[in-house]
């Protein structure tokens, strides 16, 4: 009879090998000359730059909404809370392409057209990328940050209130410092998720070289033109960026637990 321990450990290790097979297969087509060639390509550099810039702006905007929203969801009870809670899952349950299509549809409505004409045009522009990334990660980031605030016992905030802190002082002097590392790791994960966003981005911003081409859309374009070796290099660049961020997150969480 298979023991539960053996079965569960086997399952866990099989996950590692499942992804490892994919990663190793990428290296099968890796060539150093191709690597140098791709790195010296302006179009690739621009795609990396666009990806980093748009993900940074989207994450920056998300922080301003996600931090207070996560705090409210963690600490307060309000009428629309269950609906807000459900809508946070929207980017996870709706396919990215559908999310992009919904954005595109919105910007063809009178309200959307008004925004495009008078405030900012987001269809097939850089700001379309930012918007697609923003909508893709807002829910996830809020969910991650809510979990961080949930971990901070409200007794610290309570005692701060009795020591003379008002609600805003309590937030900035107690809640935020206590959740600093957790929030930082949420931000990094959000950024990593934003830089890898593809479906919604290509739907609303397209993939115009040197204009709206991001790293994930560049991968798609390389693959479409059957440039496997070039695709592999771009995958490795994206992979390196993402893995580095995950390692930083892990280190941060580790020090958080050791504090």
């Amino acid at each position, binding site marked *: 009879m298979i023991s539960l321990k053996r079965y569960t450990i086997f399952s866990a290790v099989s996950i590692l090998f499942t992804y490892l097979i994919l990663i190793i297969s990428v290296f099968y087509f890796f060539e150093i000359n191709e690597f140098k060639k791709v790195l010296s390509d302006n179009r690739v550099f621009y795609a990396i730059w666009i990806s980093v810039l748009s993900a940074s702006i989207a994450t920056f905007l998300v922080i301003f909404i996600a931090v207070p929203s996560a705090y409210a969801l963690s600490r307060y009870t309000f009428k629309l809370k269950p609906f807000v809670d459900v809508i946070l899952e929207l980017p996870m349950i709706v396919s990215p392409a559908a999310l992009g299509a919904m954005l595109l549809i919105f910007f063809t409505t009178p309200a959307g057209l008004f925004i495009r004409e008078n405030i900012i045009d987001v269809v097939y522009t850089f700001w379309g990328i930012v918007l697609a990334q923003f909508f893709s990660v807002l829910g996830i980031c809020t969910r991650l940050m809510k979990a961080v605030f949930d971990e901070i016992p409200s007794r610290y905030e*309570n005692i701060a209130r*009795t020591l003379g*802190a008002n609600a805003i002082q309590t937030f900035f002097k107690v809640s935020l*410092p*206590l959740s600093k590392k957790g929030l930082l790791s949420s931000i990094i994960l959000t950024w990593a998720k934003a830089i890898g966003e593809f479906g919604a981005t290509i739907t609303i911003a397209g993939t115009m070289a040197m204009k709206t081409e991001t790293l994930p859309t560049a991968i798609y374009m390389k693959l479409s033109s059957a440039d496997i070796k070039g695709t592999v290099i771009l995958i490795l660049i994206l992979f390196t960026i993402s893995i580095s961020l995950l390692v930083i997150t892990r280190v941060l969480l580790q020090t958080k637990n050791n504090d």
Partner: protein
Amino acid sequence: MIELRNICIRAGKFSLNQISLKVDKGNFNVLLGPSGSGKTLILETIAGLINPFEGEIFLHDKLSTHLPPDKRNLSYLPQDNALFPHKNVFENIAFGLRLSKLFIEHEIKLKVEEVAYHLNIQHILNRSVVNLSGGEQQRVALARSLILRKPILLLDEPTSSLHESMQEDFCLLLKQIQKEYHLTVLMSTHHKDSAFLLADNLHILDNGKIITQTKQNIYHSSLPENIAYLLGISNFLNLIKTNLDHQFYCEELQMYFVLSNINCNEKKLKIGVKPENIRVIKDEDLNKETQNRFVAIVNEILYKEKDALVLLEACETKYKLKMQISIYNLKKLNIFIGKIIHCKIKEEYINVIH
């Protein structure tokens, strides 16, 4: 100073209804109740951390029911101390002073050092709060509350996390601090010894009701059975009044009691006796002490530090009673398991149970 009028509070499925409590200025008040009776809920309501859905709270003679916690002019020391883990000892103590923005850095330093000296924690000011012992954490949390010089101090089970040997010292420190800082203190505890050591007034919370008594009167008053048990009264006897004055028949011991202190018009009543209020009659006094006497066999002797708890079984009825006796007397009277002894209930310490 603190007055609750018909307060109704709810926390999840637990609720307290129509709670009233009055705490006079400058007194050490103890809210005594079993675990889960709602003591913390009451303190948190007074501190403004929980809003009552009915009733009124008066603090410093002003209606304060809906005042936010930072405007209530009181300090609150929670059961787990809630020291800020991201600040060291000094910064924890200085937290409230810094918020007030009334003092410059030098003054803050002096005030922190003064209160730290008072509580004997001046040597740990630069340490992280995470590595402190339970007693040190307690003192730091107390210092953080005291430094603001608020006239009311709410203490939630301050001795519960301390080692038994440190509880008494901490109680004495609290009493000394209360006097020196002229504080009105309301402390919750389920520990009757701490309560009696500190309290000017006892507020006993049980089954959602508060009974207020001075500690001198508590053992002469009529008490509910749960509260009596909380106060260490663990022997309960049912009595039936006879036609003779002050004479009662005890069902459990099948004997007559003469209780001249009890004025009762009821036909039946229940009394409670603490184990230390049952005493052994010496052989030479058997002829003298004939009243309220019963014969029992020693079933078990449980030794404590200075006393022993003797489990008795009435010879006539097999009814079980607990008696507390000093180890000195235990030896002197040669009490051992299986011995048949004559015992007497100290009439002056009997509580009527209702």
